[in-house]
């Protein structure tokens, strides 16, 4: 064969080969659509009255960063261990994952994180602003008062909380039964609030005159006295001995009184207090009959609580209105009028009217009334509509030309009487007061909108304090905006619970713990709607190597000198954490 040189001369090799850098070819000039990183708002976080940054909490949980996840809750809510147990979790109803398979068990994960923090004795590092001159008095150490004091403290104010009872907690301490909220859990979180600088003065009942004298020491007074007096039935026999207020009964149990029952016990009402009373009675040996004048689906109690009450053996008698109560020796006769549905009430529940039927008599050993609570003192309530009063979503603010600003919150103002709404109330009041002190009361309503999570009404303290979350768009990510190709069907974690047989006999906490690996697995199901979890899809898919890593919080940026605007990064982002828009000319 011919030698190599000869072959080379016969077969010349002419190929396109360039040692010039292609960097001179600025392909970015071709672009007419521009991608960019744009974090958005997860629907759960907007549905959470406390505006917790749930998408980020689950992302951190997935990474095993339990302390950071827990701190992320604490920025918006000082009660993760409490809410992880007693919250009715409206967040889960809005979870986009619900359209895919099942919603994330946000509630269970919140509790897991709080328990992990407690077990590991995490010391949170939560940013506090420098001390301001104003001091605020808080009346009532329930969830709204403690939340208000906590958030005001974060904003640099000095707070004194005055509590009539010997221990702080309000309804959390004296109302909610132990099987839903163990006392140690509550004490832990109150200790955290105190550690942040809140001063709680227990056994200190505030009188009406305080409101007028407070301005000597305080620039504002937050009224978070709650609703602790059961409303009247207005029927004959209501005030006889042996008939008890439901909320007072729950308080007695929580104060450690030894009580026991035998035989049928009637509980009148359909709210959470009624259900708590019925379930407590059952645990003390009685047979609970819950008498409600509307239908079961109209009961204001949280659905899950009603379901668990039924599981435990509470009997619900619906469409029965109490008419009178009589005592026969050791027993009581509760006379009830059968009712029927007659259209819909203004609040969406069934309207009712008497049915043409004989009244029924229910013979019981005891009767509890729990048809809703009201303020224990009339002066706890906010004044009616009047000029210069700011009626906000979860609080009412009354600036006064003389005297401290009065703020009413918690159950005194809230439409929905839940712990998380009380937290929302305390937060709203704290932010509103800060705006009021700095810019005057006229600025409050318009400025509050800037700190809404999504479309509100939930507010974010992190956004108010200009944390990273304030960079996000308010747009709430919809299910259609998630690239579900990147997610696999996976069952939701099942909350482990005590056996029903055990629940009937004991006030032990019903919901049991889940392990860290179960929690991580559950958190991994989260779409992290609108949030970048550094999955690197944009980086991997970019055909122009225009996604470049850096040390910014985003961890990467787009090199617009070369990005042609093909949009692959935006399409391949699983969680809609990018935006694509026309290039501005």
């Amino acid at each position, binding site marked *: *064969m*011919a030698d190599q040189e000869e*072959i*080379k001369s*016969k*077969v*010349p*090799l*002419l*190929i*396109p*080969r*360039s*040692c010039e850098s*292609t960097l001179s070819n600025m392909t970015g000039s071709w672009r007419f659509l521009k991608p960019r990183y744009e974090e958005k708002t997860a629907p759960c976080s907007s549905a959470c009255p406390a505006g917790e940054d749930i998408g980020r909490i689950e992302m951190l949980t997935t990474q095993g960063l339990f302390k950071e996840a827990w701190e992320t809750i604490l920025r918006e809510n000082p009660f993760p261990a409490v809410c992880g147990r007693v919250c009715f979790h409206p967040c889960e109803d809005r979870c986009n994952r619900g359209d895919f398979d099942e919603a994330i068990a946000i509630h269970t994960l919140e509790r897991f994180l709080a328990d992990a923090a407690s077990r590991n004795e995490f010391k949170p590092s939560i940013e506090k602003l420098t001390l301001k001159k104003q001091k605020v008095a808080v009346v009532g150490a329930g969830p709204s008062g403690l939340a208000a004091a906590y958030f005001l403290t974060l904003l640099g104010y000095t707070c004194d909380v005055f509590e009539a009872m010997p221990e702080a907690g309000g309804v959390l301490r004296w109302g909610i039964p132990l099987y839903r909220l163990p006392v140690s859990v509550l004490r832990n979180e109150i200790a955290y609030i105190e550690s942040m600088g809140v001063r709680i003065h227990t056994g200190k009942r505030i009188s009406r005159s305080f409101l007028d004298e407070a301005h000597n020491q305080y620039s504002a007074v937050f009224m978070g006295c709650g609703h602790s007096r059961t409303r009247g039935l207005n029927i004959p026999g209501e005030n006889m001995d042996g008939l008890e207020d439901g909320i007072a009964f729950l308080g007695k149990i929580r104060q450690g009184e030894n009580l026991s029952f035998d035989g049928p016990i009637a509980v009148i009402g359909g709210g959470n207090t009624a259900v708590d009373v019925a379930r407590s009675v059952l645990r003390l040996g009685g047979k609970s009959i819950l008498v409600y004048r509307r239908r079961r689906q109209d009961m204001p109690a949280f659905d899950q609580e009603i379901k668990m009450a039924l599981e435990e053996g509470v009997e619900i008698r619906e469409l029965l209105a109490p008419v009178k109560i009589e005592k026969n020796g050791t027993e009581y006769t509760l006379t009830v009028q059968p009712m029927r549905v007659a259209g819909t009430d203004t609040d969406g529940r069934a309207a009712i009217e008497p049915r043409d039927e004989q009244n029924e008599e229910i013979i019981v050993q005891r009767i509890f009334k729990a048809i809703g609570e009201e303020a224990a003192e009339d002066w706890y309530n906010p004044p009616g509509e009047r000029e210069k009063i700011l009626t906000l979503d979860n609080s009412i603010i009354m600036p006064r030309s003389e005297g401290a600003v009065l703020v009413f919150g918690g159950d005194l103002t809230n439409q929905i009487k839940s712990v998380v709404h009380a937290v929302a109330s305390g937060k709203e009041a704290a932010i509103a007061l800060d705006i009021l002190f700095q810019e005057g009361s006229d600025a409050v309503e318009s400025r509050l909108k800037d700190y809404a999570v999504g479309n509100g009404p939930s507010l974010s303290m992190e956004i108010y304090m200009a944390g990273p979350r304030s960079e996000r768009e308010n747009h709430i990510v919809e299910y259609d905006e998630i690239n579900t190709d990147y997610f696999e069907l996976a069952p939701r974690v099942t909350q482990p619970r005590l056996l029903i047989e055990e629940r009937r006999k004991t006030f032990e906490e019903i919901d049991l713990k889940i392990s860290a690996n179960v929690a991580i697995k559950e958190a991994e199901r989260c779409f992290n709607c609108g949030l970048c979890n550094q999955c690197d899809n944009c980086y991997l898919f970019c055909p122009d190597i225009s996604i470049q890593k850096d040390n910014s919080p985003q961890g990467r940026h787009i090199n617009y000198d070369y990005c042609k605007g093909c949009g692959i990064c935006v399409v391949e982002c699983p969680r809609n954490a990018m935006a694509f828009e026309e290039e501005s000319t």
Partner: protein
Amino acid sequence: MKRVVEGSQAVAEAVRLAKVNVISAYPITPQTHIVEFLSEYCANGTLNARFLRVESEHSALAALIGTASTGIRSFTATSGQGLALMHELLHWASGARLPIVMAEVNRALAPGWNIWIDQTDSLAQRDTGWIQMYCEHGQEVLDSIIQAYRLGELVNLPVMVVLDAFYLSHTYEPVDIPDQEPVDRFLPPYEPKFQLDTEDPCDLGSLVTPNAYMEMRHNIAVAMEEALFLFQDVENEFKAIFDRRYGAIEPVACDDAEIILVTSGTVTSTCRQVVDDLRSQGERVGLLKVKLFRPFPVDLIRQNLTSAKKIAVIDRNFSFGASGIFAQEIRAALCNTHKHPPVFGYIAGLGGRDVTEDVLEEIYWNTKNNEVPEKESIWMGLQEV
């Protein structure tokens, strides 16, 4: 050492002996055995190569374009639809002057869905700039793969070694599998004439303007022409070591033949028997086996066919609207010669139908009994439908 092996294993053994560095492939019947053997060799260390599992044939060849650009021996194998999917990159591999070797097992194209022999898949790629060799038996397959690397690396062109589905890919025959040492002597380590190098970065295959593109194309044409001559040199060297040679074409009893049958692939073996039988009956018949289809050995074909009275080309393929593809090429090769014989085109054995001795004899007698072809293409054994 002679071993009884499947045609597919003959391919795999040759790839092993060629010390290929990267194999990238996607499974498709009837090619799958080839890459199964190779993946085992890679797994058990018999062959020190990276085996890339890719998601399509398009990716399989794209990956090899990358690996071959770094100057290492690269191999793939495919069939039918898989080759069709590679089409774009077939052009790229030759245009980029990368000596990739591919085993292509002829498979009919769908629909109707058919996994059996039909040459249309590879012949449809005749304009992609790949050298194409059609093999008759397992030994030729093994030898051709080794030769393909030698030839491809000399001229910087990719090579397709083609074998019939099942009749060759899945048939067990005795094959002499040489030792490594003589193979190393025949096929020294690859010394690429260019390669990507992170120490000396460059980009390959970038924009070429009208003032240079034609020269690059012409350059490929020159390389193809040279490949025809170098193929003979490569065969000479191979024969010197292994004592086997096949030729770009192989004439059998053509010297005095009045009618010459032109075949490719496994049909050739059947045809050898038919020629023997007809000769014993006194018929002056010859056989021309075409092994090298690209570059097409026009001069050799002219030398061997112009003296015959008639030529009968057997095509196991068809170009719709024209004729059998070998017949087209033979006609084109002959048309500028003086008083060339008429070329009869026969279509047989599409989609795996057997081409028996009877079919080939019928072709012979039909050619003998007609002065000129009745039609451009005569379809053999068509059933009433």
